[in-house]
């Protein structure tokens, strides 16, 4: 292993669920309440201020839909990576992980395009509470995409050498979660008008 000795604690598995995966699920639990708090706040104020619909009319549905497609597809790749990892095919997992990272990159580029055109039209974070929520929610989500891509690059690097293949599943679960968040952000911000 690396310079850090793996403790015996990490090799035990009383629940029958591998520790790394268990922790991934806990992280997702804690993320649910973070995104949950933000989206509940948005929903409450949105339902109270029905005139925000005027603002919402300016979001780019097609960009949002395309990004949903991109994330769904990248989720598909990462589950294939997991399958490959389970078959102990590190090289294959490596390839699929990089397809996923590519998906993330496309997603971020589309996001950048969206932000760019919005800002160009003078719509910024402080142009009204709807837009504050729009930027905050998509921004927080974008940070998660970015973090996922970076971690995935490390996991892919190790997977290629056949190391730590169990981590492919963990990063996959995380990536799917980020996908699920987007599945809800999409109708909340882009369709409800």
């Amino acid at each position: 292993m690396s310079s850090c000795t793996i403790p015996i604690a990490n090799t035990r598995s009383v629940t029958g669920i591998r520790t790394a995966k268990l922790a991934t699920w806990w992280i997702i639990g804690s993320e649910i309440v973070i995104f949950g708090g933000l989206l509940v706040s948005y929903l409450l104020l949105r339902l109270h201020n029905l005139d925000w619909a005027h603002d919402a009319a300016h979001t780019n549905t097609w960009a949002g839909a395309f990004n949903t497609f991109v994330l769904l597809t990248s989720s598909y790749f990462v589950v294939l990576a997991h399958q490959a990892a389970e078959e102990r095919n590190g090289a294959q997992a490596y390839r699929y992980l990089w397809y996923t990272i590519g998906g993330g990159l496309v997603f971020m580029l589309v996001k950048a395009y969206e932000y760019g055109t919005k800002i160009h039209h003078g719509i910024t974070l402080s142009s009204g509470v709807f837009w504050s929520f729009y930027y905050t929610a998509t921004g927080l989500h974008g940070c998660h995409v970015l973090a996922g891509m970076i971690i995935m690059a490390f996991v892919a690097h190790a997977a290629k050498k056949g190391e730590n293949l169990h981590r492919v599943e963990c990063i996959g679960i995380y990536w799917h979660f980020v996908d699920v968040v987007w599945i809800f952000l999409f109708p909340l911000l882009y369709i409800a008008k």
Partner: protein
Amino acid sequence: MSDSHPTSQAHPHPNYFKIWGTLVILLIVSVLGPLIGIPLLTLMTAFGIAVVKALMVAAYFMHLNVEKKIIWYILLICLTLMFLFFFVIAPDIMNHEGTNWHSIGSAVKNSDVVHH
């Protein structure tokens, strides 16, 4: 060392391509739904489908369908808390007067919302 682990029991993998295809079709429906222009239908296609999609991703991609039940409980508890949070504070945030009271703090609100 990883061999000493009770590795996640190798379960048969479903046909992921089919699932991906279904998800994309659902996505198309949710985008086209609003074009019909019936608000209730839009709500259903938009949010109903979001829930279905999320459940599909959770069940098949995240393998919750074969995972130990406890994981479901963890996630459901977190979600339940968020529903609780919504419904308990909704009376405050979404309603600003009642039979014997009105909220002074938000009195200004409805009259001078800034438009863009």
